């Protein structure tokens, strides 16, 4: 079920126990969700679309770790790849399912880049997200389900992320390209 209304205001201090409701929220195709973090991943900026879709007030997100909106059904391997790619100074495009403060979820096509100061030093990360096409999400979801199933077979987060990262690398290798090429093959065929 699609719910395009703004999320209701969250109960303060309750983000850690949000349970997904299965309700899908979406946003307009001409909107960009934007946020910035410091080099540790702590949110330093979130735009109005971010706040409206996630259902948080600015004061609820500022100074919070970005995994505040992490959905439990997102494989950790994807975030591992995100941070590995950013650590190399590279950009990354990824389909990501986010969790709003009221338990609704919203899929985004995220573009994440490192931000550099005038002296070239890393000052943080920037992410803008677009509304993905539902067919693109359908294409990417089976891979995420596979990665998640692999992660759930391991007792510790560390073992889980190692195993699913391996599986992701193998899957990419089998398709004969890079993760970037995999994402762009989905974008090129489904995001028109």
């Amino acid at each position, binding site marked *: 079920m699609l719910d395009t209304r703004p999320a209701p205001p969250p109960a303060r201090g309750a983000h850690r126990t949000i349970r997904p409701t299965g309700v899908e929220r979406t946003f307009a*195709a001409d909107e*960009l969700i934007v946020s*910035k973090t410091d080099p540790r991943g702590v949110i330093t900026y979130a*735009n109005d679309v971010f706040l409206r879709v996630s259902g948080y007030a600015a004061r609820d997100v500022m100074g919070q770790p970005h995994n505040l909106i992490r959905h439990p059904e997102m494989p950790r391997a994807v975030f591992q790849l995100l941070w590995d790619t950013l650590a190399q100074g590279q*950009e990354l495009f990824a389909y990501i399912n986010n969790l709003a403060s009221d338990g609704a979820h919203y899929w985004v096509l995220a573009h994440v880049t490192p931000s550099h100061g005038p002296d070239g030093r890393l000052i943080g990360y920037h992410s803008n997200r677009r509304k993905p096409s539902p067919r693109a999400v359908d294409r990417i979801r089976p891979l995420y389900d596979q990665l998640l199933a692999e992660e759930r077979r391991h007792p510790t987060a560390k073992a889980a992320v190692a195993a699913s990262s391996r599986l992701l690398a193998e899957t990419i290798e089998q398709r004969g390209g890079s993760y970037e090429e995999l994402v762009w093959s989905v974008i090129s065929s489904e995001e028109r």
Partner: protein
Amino acid sequence: MGIRGTRASSRTDAEELELYRAFVRSLTDVCDAAARGDLEARSHLDPAIEAVPELRTLHDAANRMLDVADAFVRESSAALTSAAEGRFHRRLLERGLLGAYRSSATAINSARAAMQETAGRVIEAQTSRLRMADEFESVVLAMSEQVATASTEMSASASGLGTAAAAASTEVGTAQQTIASLTQSSAEIREIIAMIDAVAAQTRLLALNATIEAARAGEAGKGFAVVASEVKDLADQTGRATERVTAQVEQIRQAADAVASGMGTVGTTVGEMNALVDGITAAVDGSSSLSPGADDTTGLSQMAEKLRSEATGFLAEMRR
């Protein structure tokens, strides 16, 4: 209405004017930073301003303006960097970009497509050049291989031919010696026959004298006359036999002369053949194979080798 009512009742006009001025100052700083190219700059809300709807709206609008400029700069430069590195799958996503940003994104994507097409043509040209090099290589290698094989065979044939010609020369020499000794024998036979002829003539003369002497002896010489006649017949028979032998020997001499002249022609031909074989050997193996140290004429097998090495150098150049 409720917020507006609260604001109206909780602040004096002077307080609200100060709030506006503070926000204008802070937004001016953000705009200045953005004008200097610092696209990290954003307006930040403090709770007092958040309560003023007009300021809240202005804050959001200013940040949206910066967000889209920031996103466009990040993505367009990354898209062009990717295209320059040959990663043409990385487009500039037009979704979420409006107006001039979108037209600019479209223009950048067209430029990227043109770059991709050019790169494709360059790759195609490179591929066809490499394919040509491969074809050329296989032709040249096959050709030089064939030439090398042919020259090896020709060299072997020439060598075999040379050996055969030398053997023929020897045989012709031997045959010429045989004929010479045959001619010599014929001459000796003629001498012997001349001697026999002389003896026969002398015998006939003796027989004639004996006949005359027998006639003069009368009856007593009759028996002797018979013997003398027999002797004369024998001498006549001998003379006829030597005539036939002489004719036979003459025939043998003529035949031997004909064979000798034939053998001379064969000898000349074999000699000419030797010169031709030398020519072939020089063409195939080079002139130094015949007279070491002389000015070298390149042989066919060396030429095949040279062709192969020249072609290899050319191909290396072509494949760069």
